[in-house]
């Protein structure tokens, strides 16, 4: 950091030059790190995706878009795409519904405020645990001879032990269910902050005009929360689409690709089949998908200013 310190004392640099340079000196470590470890790798992965047999071969040949063509012709790529979309959409919808329900209850005037602040601590619990730990908690709970199967049979909802994660009929739904549990707290916290910002005068005025609870919710609460809902849902969509540890630790993409996601598909291409070029093309597709949604997110954020 010596250079910054020096800069303050160098007499022969004019005040104006110093004013121009100083902010960049403070930004220098950030710019260096992000250029080296964010921009450069993106260029590398794009380049890899246009070559044949990278990393494994010292002199890979340029093949243009051939890797992308191979990918688009692969049935499992499309299965992964479908699974990722289903998993992401269901997660976002239920995160929102559950997060909103919790936020509304925690903001309810019907409930004692001490109880509410204690409950809030517990409702955020799932968020404290990392994906790997969430995966093994639910593997234990959803085990064929685990407690959930026991309870379902005790109440005669199901007839026999279900292998939630290892049957291709249930695996994707079980996985989505677990992800919904893991992800609603972000919505709850953000929406709760939003609810605190709604002026009570609005509700009182609506009551005087004879509006019922549902009308107040639909015409006052929801429009007020809309910007938060849109921002969080877009971010959640991007992050959920990139899911890896939870899938890797529960089903590993199986049984027979029933829960294969774009991320596990890409990972396996690279690190179990060593097809780094194909994996790079697949990684580029995930990057392009994420960046397109990010574009809408940033455009939306800007429109709010």
């Amino acid at each position, binding site marked *: 950091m010596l250079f910054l*310190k020096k*800069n*303050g*004392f160098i007499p022969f640099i004019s005040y104006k030059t110093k004013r*121009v340079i*100083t902010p*960049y000196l*403070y930004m220098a470590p*950030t*710019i260096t*790190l*992000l250029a080296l*470890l*964010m921009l450069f*790798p*993106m260029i*590398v992965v794009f380049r*890899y995706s246009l070559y044949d047999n990278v*990393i494994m071969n010292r002199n890979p040949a340029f093949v243009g878009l051939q890797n992308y063509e191979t990918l688009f012709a692969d049935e499992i790529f499309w299965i992964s795409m479908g699974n990722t979309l289903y998993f992401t959409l269901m997660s976002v919808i239920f995160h929102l519904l559950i997060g909103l*329900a*919790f936020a509304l*209850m925690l903001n309810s*005037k*019907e*409930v004692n405020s001490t109880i509410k602040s204690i409950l809030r*601590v*517990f409702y*955020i*619990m*799932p968020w*404290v*645990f*990392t*994906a*790997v*730990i969430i995966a*093994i*908690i639910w593997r234990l709970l959803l085990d064929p001879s685990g407690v959930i199967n026991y309870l379902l049979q005790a109440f005669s909802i199901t007839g026999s032990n279900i292998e939630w994660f290892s049957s291709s009929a249930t695996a994707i739904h079980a996985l989505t269910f677990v992800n919904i549990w893991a992800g609603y707290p*972000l919505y709850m*916290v*953000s929406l709760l902050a939003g609810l605190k910002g709604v002026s009570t005068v609005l509700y009182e005025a609506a009551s005087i005009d004879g509006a019922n609870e549902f009308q107040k919710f639909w015409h006052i609460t929801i429009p007020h929360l809309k910007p938060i809902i849109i*921002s969080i849902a877009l*971010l959640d969509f991007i992050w959920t689409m*990139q899911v*890896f540890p939870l899938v890797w*630790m529960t089903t590993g993409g199986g049984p027979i690709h029933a829960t294969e996601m774009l*991320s596990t598909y*890409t990972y396996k291409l*690279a690190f179990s089949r060593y097809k*780094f070029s194909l994996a*790079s093309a697949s*990684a580029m597709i*995930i*990057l392009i998908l*994420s*960046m397109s949604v*990010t574009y809408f997110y940033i455009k939306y*954020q800007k429109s*709010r*200013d």
Partner: protein
Amino acid sequence: MAKPFSILNIMTYLGLAIGLVYACFPVLWMLFSSLKSNTEIFSLPPALFPKEFTLKAYRSIFGSPMKVRFFLNSYLVATVVTLLTLFVAILAGYSFSRHSFKLKKPLNLFIISTQTVPPISLLIPYFGIVVAFRMYDTYFALIFTYMVFTLPYAILLMTGYFNTLPKELDEAVIIDGGSSFTALWRVLVPVSIPGIVATGVYTFLLSWNEFLFALTLTKSTEMRTVPIGIQLLMGQHAYEWNEMMAMSILGSFPILIMYLVAQRYFLEGMTAGSVKN
């Protein structure tokens, strides 16, 4: 306004109770399973509380140098990443908050958009780079790659915090002839401790929980972090469920403590991604 036993009142309490079970039952099940013996885990009928409380699972973890090493690795990497990230983010946050410069807007936009870059897209080039620079299976590989993902959040949080402080605070130092460097470290940083703590807590959490890079960029058992350690336990042929649950409890311990002690800071970090800029 609330009538003591209105239908809405009863419904709300019922909803809150269902919510509590939904949110906490899995966590309690993990906690009490870690206190059972492995043979009791699947005993019928299943019971939340152990018939016989035992710390066997915890003793077995602390008795294994390999498992203790997972924890030391995680603490080491997360601490170094947090310190480095804070240092770089304080400089950048100061620049964003107090200076105006040509590339400010595009840089800010770039940093916001890096939050959504998928780790898997960078993983393959990272693997190539890390191997080429002989950093494969070292702490450096993890520290550098984690920083790319902690830095954007940290910068946004620090910029946000500096923006809440009056400009006169540090400008006074510069008017008195001090350098901007003095203004930052002697004046601004000491009054920004709450913001720095919030940023530090969130950075620690992100690196403590990281899975994909730790899985791919390290190989030897001595270099593994806690999440990968849990995965390794999972891969053994006989599941020691009680030990995996104990490992999960211990692996969540620093985060849980930070959450309970510094809840407010935690929530700030959590919503950092969605804050307006």
